[in-house]
């Protein structure tokens, strides 16, 4: 079953004089239960793509269909509801509310519209435990390290049990230990709870946790790599593709990253 269907998506920023084509006739689709990575050079349009799927940005033309609903048909309140109920978003720059405690930041999306779920506190406890945040629930974002903030952002994205998680560089600020942990957790969510995940990343190691990588360049579909065998092999083919997309970049040895 298709969860995300992106068809001829184009996004142009700006007006006549300085136009930036962030997405250019991009099409692909994602099936339920997939863990898809999005890769591409900086400025390729990855964040724009995720924002469009999240209805934070509206496309200039083309369409995105999520779980059978066309996003362009949504009214403002419907898209807010869609973001709230069907989507979990881990932003590139965490986007935590500085005035709220970690606990309140995590549960915030559940309290937007009453009624609040009865198991709010048990859910909070579960995700705090899973992401190792128990000891810092009463702290404020400023009092956390970047990696801890990223984990709070992840917990917030997951707490509403979304069917689709969009993650923009979720491991950007984590050391490899913490990154591995978070990725293992995402994988577990993906496998056990059947959550579909789309993750933007620059890092081949992070990408190797996915089952498929879509490469985009200059806002268009460039190529994709699907995992068939062991992770090491997948990792190598990702590195190869990165080299191709950058017109022959330096190949990093997998041993550095592992």
């Amino acid at each position: 079953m298709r969860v995300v269907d992106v068809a001829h998506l184009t996004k142009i920023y700006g007006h006549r004089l300085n136009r930036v084509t962030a997405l250019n006739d991009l099409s692909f689709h994602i099936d339920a239960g997939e863990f898809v990575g999005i890769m591409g050079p900086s400025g390729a349009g990855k964040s724009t793509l995720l924002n469009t799927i999240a209805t934070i940005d509206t496309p200039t033309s083309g369409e995105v269909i999520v779980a059978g609903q066309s996003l362009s048909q949504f009214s403002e309140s419907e898209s807010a509801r869609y973001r709230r109920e069907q989507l979990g978003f881990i932003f590139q720059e965490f986007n935590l509310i500085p005035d709220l405690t970690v606990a309140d930041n995590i549960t915030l999306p559940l309290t937007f519209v009453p009624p609040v779920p009865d198991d709010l506190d048990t859910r909070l406890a579960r995700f705090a435990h899973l992401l190792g945040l128990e000891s810092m629930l009463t702290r404020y974002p400023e009092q956390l390290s970047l990696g801890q903030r990223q984990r709070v952002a992840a917990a917030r994205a997951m707490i509403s049990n979304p069917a689709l998680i969009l993650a923009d560089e979720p491991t950007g600020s984590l050391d490899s230990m913490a990154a591995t942990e978070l990725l293992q957790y995402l994988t577990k969510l993906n496998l056990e709870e059947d959550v579909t995940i789309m993750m933007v990343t620059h890092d081949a190691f992070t990408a190797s946790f996915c089952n498929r990588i879509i490469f985009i360049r200059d806002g268009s579909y460039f190529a994709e790599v699907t995992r068939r065998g062991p992770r090491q092999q997948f990792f190598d083919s990702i590195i190869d593709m990165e080299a191709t997309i950058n017109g022959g970049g330096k190949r990093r040895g997998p041993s550095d990253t592992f």
Partner: protein
Amino acid sequence: MGRLIRSDFHRYATINRLYVAMSAVMVALLYAVLALIEDDALFAAADRYTEVSAAAPSVLLVLLVVALLFTIIFLLYMNTLLIERRARSISVYRLLGMPAGRIGLTLFYESLLLGAQTLVIGFALGLLLSKFLAMMLLRLMALPMTVGLLWQPHAMLELVAVFTVVYAVIGVINGIYVAHIPIGRRYQLPAQGLPTRVTGWRMVWATVGWVLLIGSYLGAYNLVHLAYAVSQSRFGHGYVVLWAVLAVGLVGLYLVFRYSLPTLTSRLVRLPFFRHHAVRLLTLTNLNERLQRNVHSLFLTTLLATGTITVLGSGAIFYQFGQAGVNQSISMDLVASPYGLKTTYHDLNPDWIKQTVVLPTKLAAGRLHTQHGQPGDGDETFYNVIALKDYQRIAKVQKGLAKLTLKPGQAVMAVYGRSLYQHTWLNQRRQWSITLPRTGQKFQLQSVSNQFPLGVDGYFDRALIVTDHDYQALAAPRDPMTGYQLKSGKQVEAFVKKAANASRYDFLSGSSKALTGEKSLQLSQTEHAGSYSRSALRLKGPLLAQMNMLFGLGLFVVILLGLIFMIATASILLMKQLIIAFQERQSRQIIRALGMPTRAMHQIINWQTTLIFGLPLVVGTFNAWLIIHFFSLYLDNPGYSLVVMIVLIYALVYAGFGALTARLVRRS
């Protein structure tokens, strides 16, 4: 550099426009007042009325100076708000190598440019306003004249000179500020507030704040009695209490803003009622943050609101006092004693009389008994004793005279300036009585009033209303009063003028023997040492004109001051909210991205604005009410209707500013 100015102007267009608009309104008011002062023709025409109108220009000049000083302080304060907000981008310019001098010069020109805009708009607005203000002044002073727009180039030049200096100074301040912005390291926003933890000391201060504030409120409410009690003790003078209550109140209020409210909000934030409802939670955290980061601007606006409402309210109460005072003094157009009547009767044409009322009274000395040591106990003075049926008859035609029911042996005392007899919980009026020593009659006091039939000016001192039977039984000299309601017309006016110039008095010997009832009372037309006197012929018209002039001018000054204060208060709040909204733009984008419905987001903004605007308004109204209540006691409760009206108008305009703020924040 020109490009830099232009791009900055563009970038801060909304806020600059607001800044110009607010300052322009202030300039417009200043111009209108100055034009009024300099309009010689206006006051020359008014001169023939009284000396009050002759003094009007100097009163207005004082108003102008106060308003001007206030406007300058306001502009300086606004400027600091505006420049701080730009510190970040300025520090980037400097980091990139732009010389501080150049940026300083840019800011200097920018300040002059904004000033020029302000003055042009201000003068245009001021011209329109001048006619309106002049008409309002004449109306309030009851001067029957009309005026047009006041075009006074001279006044404009003076203001241009003053404001050129002001804006140049502001420009220089900004230039100096720029030179001191740190470069090299990243410019930090003012400590993005981590909510401070509730420590033991904070709890202590929070509690002290509440105690002081509530204590001063109780003190203020019972100020009259407190002052009396202190003046009776050996601790000092009564007015010490006034200052003490004021000082304690200020400190208490500050502590409440600084410690008690933040402690309260950071406690409340933990309740599920707030935690489980994003609108409530975000509203409260925002308030909490404001209390922790901007407590000074909140405290300042609260004081400003208090000041404004107090000034407006007391102006209104004094005006009302003037009006009520005239009616309280003389309730009909002409009130005369038998002697007064005798001297004018031949001048008074019966055709001019609309209505005649006769009030028989008897004169007696009396002694008041209250609790031992309480104010008023043992007072000996003269009473005009009135029968209930006569009182009720007058009450039908005299507004404000309450209907009474009395049992035999009961009485109502009318006294001018009854603040010390006021009923409060410190001073319960129980078992008060009056004896008339000459006849030995004793009356239980049923109540104390400040309303005299036909007006207090007809009485030597106090009045005592008793039942018809008790009145019959009283053997005492008669002192009837006659009141006339006159028709209007030229001849009547001439008569009133002539009668007003002839001053005639009745006298009553105030010797101790007369007061203790050992000697009978004698009315005479000659004065002796210690005599009680009253005017034998009393006219309402001239008194009313005088009062209108005086209190009308006062009310005008007060309304203008109130207007300027209010614009300042609301502007500070508006600017602060807008600047914070710009800073919190990212947080709003986050919660929107997380799926908060637009409606809920608007609710948060509306709530935040309501709280931030409501806090100074509510606290200010309460403070002001206590102060006005105190004035009102001293002025014998002239009534609150005008006060309520003026405060309502204030609140309405203020709410308008709030609505505008919410709108601008929603759009930002």
